[in-house]
């Protein structure tokens, strides 16, 4: 790695740590960053420094929320980077193969049937996997070129799930389950609890590790299947493993945070513009940037107004212009 890239990675890591600490400190009960650091380093903070209430806020409410934000941001960004590399298309986002819409359908179904908190996540995760499984199945049976086949099947399954969600919303009770479904679909970290982190972290981290480990193989997909085969690489196998990993991560993220759009589309562009297209760098860079960006956006979502603004709305407001900027900037460089 060149020194320019090491420098940028150092900056990204620093940004990640800073955002994490600042996110822990801001909110309705502000806690100075220094106290946050002290509280996090030692299990118990210095006697009398933090009131028990603030300590509860810090560790029971804020810590899971920031942690989950970092996890979901890193997860969606990384799977976005991987999907874009697999499909050689910069407009692909983690939602493309139907993982998000599948998860949303599962969650809506669980909410409608009055299932518990843990079950909603589980349903969302499994139906996210099932939706992508269906896409893969359709693609295996089709004779289209694999990249095109995946995209078409993904769009098809995605809109099938959206239709299902619309139907569930139609029959939902407008007094309780409908608002719950609608709120869930907007995506939010507001209800993040310790259980969410415990549920999502192992899934997201194992997916990220898989993707990180195979980052060089993912690069080779950019050459196309036949060229990859001529280089002794089984592109189908690599793509399958990468899709599995990225889908696992996406479904796990969506199952605890709802549908948070844009981050998985924008951060990969941001990462590539900083460190280039090589997945050996763009995957870790998108993990760091996404892990910083989502908690940062979440800080705004909880501070902008007295009632929370769902983060999915904010990421769209921030993400869309940001993507435009990157696209225009890229043109000028060319």
């Amino acid at each position: 790695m060149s020194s320019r890239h090491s420098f940028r990675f150092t900056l990204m890591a620093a940004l990640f740590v800073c955002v994490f600490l600042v996110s822990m400190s801001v909110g309705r009960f502000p806690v100075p960053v220094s106290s946050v650091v002290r509280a996090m380093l030692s299990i118990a903070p210095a006697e009398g420094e933090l009131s028990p209430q603030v300590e509860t806020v810090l560790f029971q409410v804020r810590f899971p929320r920031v942690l989950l934000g970092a996890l979901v941001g890193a997860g969606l960004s990384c799977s976005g980077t991987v999907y874009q590399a697999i499909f050689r298309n910069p407009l692909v986002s983690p939602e493309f193969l139907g993982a998000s819409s599948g998860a949303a359908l599962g969650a809506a179904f669980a909410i409608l049937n009055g299932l518990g908190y843990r079950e909603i996540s589980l349903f969302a995760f499994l139906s996210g996997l099932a939706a992508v499984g269906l896409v893969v199945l359709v693609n295996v049976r089709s004779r289209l070129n694999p990249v095109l086949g995946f995209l078409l099947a993904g769009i098809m399954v995605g809109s099938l799930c959206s239709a299902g969600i619309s139907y569930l919303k139609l029959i939902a009770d407008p007094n309780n389950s409908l608002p719950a479904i609608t709120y869930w679909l907007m995506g939010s970290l507001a209800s993040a609890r310790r259980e969410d982190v415990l549920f999502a972290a192992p899934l997201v981290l194992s997916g990220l590790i898989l993707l990180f480990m195979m980052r060089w193989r993912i690069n080779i997909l950019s050459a196309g299947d036949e060229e990859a085969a001529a280089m002794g690489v089984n592109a189908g196998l690599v793509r399958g493993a990468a899709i599995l990993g990225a889908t696992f991560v996406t479904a796990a993220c969506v199952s605890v945070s709802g549908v948070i759009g844009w981050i998985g589309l924008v951060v990969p562009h941001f990462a590539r513009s900083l460190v280039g297209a090589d997945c050996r760098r763009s995957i870790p860079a998108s993990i760091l940037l996404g892990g910083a960006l989502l908690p940062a956006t979440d800080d705004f979502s909880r501070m902008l107004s007295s009632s929370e603004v769902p983060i999915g709305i904010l990421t769209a407001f921030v993400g869309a212009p940001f993507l435009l900027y990157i696209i225009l900037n890229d043109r000028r460089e060319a």
Partner: protein
Amino acid sequence: MNTPSLCVKELTVDYGARRVLSGVSFEVYGGSLVALLGRNGSGKSTLFRCILGLLSYRGRIAAGGRDTRGMSASERASAFAYIPQGHENASSHTALEMVLMGASSRLGFWSTPGRREAHRAVEAMEEIGIGHLSDRRYDRLSGGEKQLVLTARALAQDASILIMDEPCSNLDYGHQLRVLDCAAGLARRGYLVVLSTHNPEHALSFADQALLLMDGAVNISGEPSDVMDAATLERMYGVPLDLAPAGGMLRTRRMGKVS
């Protein structure tokens, strides 16, 4: 003569009911530049895809005396390297990263290229004089530069047989010559370079051997100046041709009248 580097025997390929290749046989040797000529749709790319193991076929293909059917993917990659047409890939990797991909067959599924592979990639780029392109983005290179980067990638793969699919299509005259010159240089250094071309003049001025693919078979093979007479080319391309006496330049006899 040493054992043939590449030996193709009775190669037959059907696309559904259509027979594309019927009994292609030829032998070519290391250290030579071999030009494969034939009309559009004559099966040049099909032949290459069989050699690279991308298509199923009947017959036998052997590299260095070994049947390619028994080779694993990585063994095959260390025997053959493929140099596709550069314009088909618009990857935004840097040129060096592209070349580095050639080393992939020697790496395990979970590994990334290390110092040794990086060194080989730089060496391959310098070997064909494009060291200065390392940090440039591949999708922003010219067609000829792309072709040379893909050639360097093939060298980094450490295979002794290089398969070039129409390396000169879409290149301007200068870049065509540069790419062909590079291919001829590699052949002189011991590689077996097999390239397909639509331009008989390329074969006449650069190749050591010409393979003429007609009616699904290699009917004629030999030194380009021996086998590529006007009558043969006329038969192959279906255009009346004259071969100018000096320099081997070709011109059509009656412009515009295609039989």
